[in-house]
């Protein structure tokens, strides 16, 4: 396996290449990169790949004002089984 084929987001199986290409094309924020590739949108909520996706985005995006943010997390932060949702 080549380095480009390496998986970054384990849950959604998003590769390094896909993330690099998308980041280079859209020069987007980490948030947009996640929405475009689905990296970090899987079962674990991005806990495993967040730091890596942030770094890939930071390399190509012109992210100003990086120190103060409101991290956008959607509850639930743990997946809820359908049984519990029902009630």
């Amino acid at each position: 396996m080549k380095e480009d084929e390496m998986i970054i987001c384990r849950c959604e199986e998003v590769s390094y290449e896909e993330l690099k290409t998308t980041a280079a094309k859209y020069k987007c924020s980490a948030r947009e990169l996640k929405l475009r590739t689905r990296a970090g949108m899987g079962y674990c909520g991005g806990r495993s790949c967040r730091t890596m996706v942030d770094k890939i985005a930071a390399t190509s995006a012109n992210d100003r004002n990086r120190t103060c943010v409101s991290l956008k997390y959607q509850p639930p932060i743990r997946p809820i089984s359908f049984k519990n949702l029902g009630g």
Partner: protein
Amino acid sequence: MTRRILDHPILGKMEDNNYVSFTFNQKGYKGLENESLAAALLANGIRTLRHHEESGSPRGIYCNIGHCYECRVSVDGQQGIRACLTPVKEGMTVESDGQLPSSKRR
């Protein structure tokens, strides 16, 4: 050969010896009561806990403390249970979550 660390130079001898029986993918195994399912399975030499839902690639524990959700199994019919956080009990029925490797692969 056991994978358990029965004697440890600092932590001493292992005191628990309350073994219980459970099944994983229809095969019987023994584990220590209340140790994590992930630990009990690894002690039995089992690393693959599930297969990825789309690609079918094999997965095992990654974080071992509940963060990564890679260790999802079904316990007594309930899916999506993290093996690293679930204490083993007598008579537990455990199955791999995800796609069987035979149906689609790589």
